[in-house]
């Protein structure tokens, strides 16, 4: 055994905009063990449900995470709607699906940029974020916000998209598809990029299941796990197949996310074409009473929303199981045996969202 050194990684680290702390136990250059410690951005949002009523909490739920904010609001609304037996209008379901897929798109572009930054390809980072701004423009046009929209509400959505806006979305999707093809060629075919991702951080399908990995992390190891197949919102009416790769390394995870970008573009087109006419919100009366589990697919994987209500306007409990939390055990497993220089790339391969994890 050589010299064992412990290198602290974070909480303030140039690679990650968010604070997470890892103690990396090294044997020379090789990581033997990684010990995470979290809690730098814990706010206590689940307890806040005692102070904000169930309608106000929608806006708190959106602020669990700013990257997939729409999907958090949507998950919470779906759970409360199920308790109250509220049937949302069909147009609202399609709009929710459309915004959810747009959120997935911007999140994957954001991740691509950060990954490029992690392996030192600065101009690729810039290009990914340049393309991402197109999606933010759509958000701004249809909801009024760039990252936090506050557009999801119990009973439907608070804003409607008119025909002109929907046409605009279709035309942006065409440009986006062309630009994405050009951009993702670099991730998939460039030899210097492949040198950093191929064969790195292997996770077998069995390990992925045993460690409870979700989302692209599991799908890159050949586990066919996509909550959108449950058919919530309007997903039941759209045709798509989960993206699965089998290699289980960083390259496969990159490939899964890149193929998901094209899948999302396709889903958004389907949504716009199938968008029914009608109202976007129904009035909700009374208070919820009961409990419900909602599962939905975020860009990072499956998120679970559990709500328990007692017939008053304050809920008893809201519990959120976020995808990054589920992926941390798998991350720690893949970190073992890698070199110190590969740690940033490996951490980004799970697309960490610490803000969701700690709430």
């Amino acid at each position, binding site marked *: 055994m050589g010299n064992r050194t412990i290198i602290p990684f974070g*909480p*303030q*680290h*140039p*690679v990650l*905009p*968010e*604070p997470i702390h890892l103690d990396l136990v090294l044997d020379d250059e090789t990581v033997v063990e990684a010990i995470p410690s979290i*809690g*730098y*951005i*814990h*706010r*206590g*949002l689940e*307890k*806040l449900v005692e*102070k*904000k009523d169930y309608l106000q909490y929608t*806006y*708190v739920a959106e*602020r*669990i*995470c*700013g*990257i997939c*904010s729409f999907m958090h609001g949507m998950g919470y609304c779906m759970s409360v709607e199920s308790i109250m037996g509220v049937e949302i209008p069909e147009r609202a379901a399609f709009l929710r699906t459309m915004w959810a897929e747009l959120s997935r798109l911007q999140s994957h572009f*954001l991740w691509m*940029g950060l990954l490029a930054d992690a392996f030192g390809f600065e101009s690729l*980072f*810039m*290009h990914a*974020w*340049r393309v*991402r*701004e197109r999606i*933010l423009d759509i958000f701004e046009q249809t909801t009024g*916000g*760039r*990252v*936090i929209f506050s557009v999801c509400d119990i009973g439907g959505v608070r804003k409607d998209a008119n025909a002109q806006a929907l046409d605009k979305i279709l035309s942006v999707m065409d440009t986006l598809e062309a630009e994405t093809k050009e951009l993702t060629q670099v991730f998939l075919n460039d030899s210097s990029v492949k040198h950093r991702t191929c064969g790195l951080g292997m996770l077998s399908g069995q390990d992925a299941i045993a460690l409870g990995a979700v989302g692209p992390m599991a799908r890159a190891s050949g586990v066919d796990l996509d909550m959108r197949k449950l058919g919530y919102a309007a997903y039941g009416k759209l045709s798509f197949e989960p993206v699965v790769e089998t290699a289980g390394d960083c390259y496969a995870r990159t490939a899964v996310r890149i193929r998901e970008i094209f899948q999302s573009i396709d889903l958004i087109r389907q949504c716009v074409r199938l968008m029914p006419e009608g109202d976007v919100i129904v009035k909700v009366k009374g208070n919820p009473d009961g409990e419900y589990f909602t599962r939905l697919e975020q860009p990072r994987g499956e998120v679970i929303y559990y709500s328990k209500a007692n017939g008053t306007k304050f809920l008893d409990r809201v519990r959120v199981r976020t995808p990054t939390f589920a992926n941390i055990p798998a991350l720690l497993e893949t970190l073992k045996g890698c070199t110190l220089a590969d740690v940033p790339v490996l951490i980004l391969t799970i697309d960490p*969202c610490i*803000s969701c994890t*700690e709430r």
Partner: protein
Amino acid sequence: MNFIKKSPWILHYDGSSCNGCDIEVLACLTPLYDVERFGVINTGNPKHADILLITGSVNEQNIPVVKQLYEQMAEPRVVVAVGICAATGGIFSECYNVVGGADKVLPVDVYVPGCAARPEAVIDGVMRALAILEEKQKTARCKKGTQEGAGV
């Protein structure tokens, strides 16, 4: 605006924000807003930084981290609180693990409002911080001058 006198380097720390403001801070650096053309660089090293951008509220666990980062920065230094959480705690102010805005631990010079703060607002905040930075530099020079004068 064609040029700025100084190119400030920025240190960004995420207090306990929801990521919304963080990605907007990052968006300032990317091609649509591109503050790097003015030489504004997001550095990871506190000793290189002139401006500390803090997003999100502070809590018991990150207070020592925030203080340490601030103390490591060289004088003159300016603190910009980005977003409503960094100003007062915002929607999270009632949470049990939130102490409050960044001004509970640091002397904040500029507050940037918004949830999430828009990139234009963040850039505006940095420009205002730059003016304060220059002011601080001047006073520091004057002080030094008088001290040296007194010494003679």
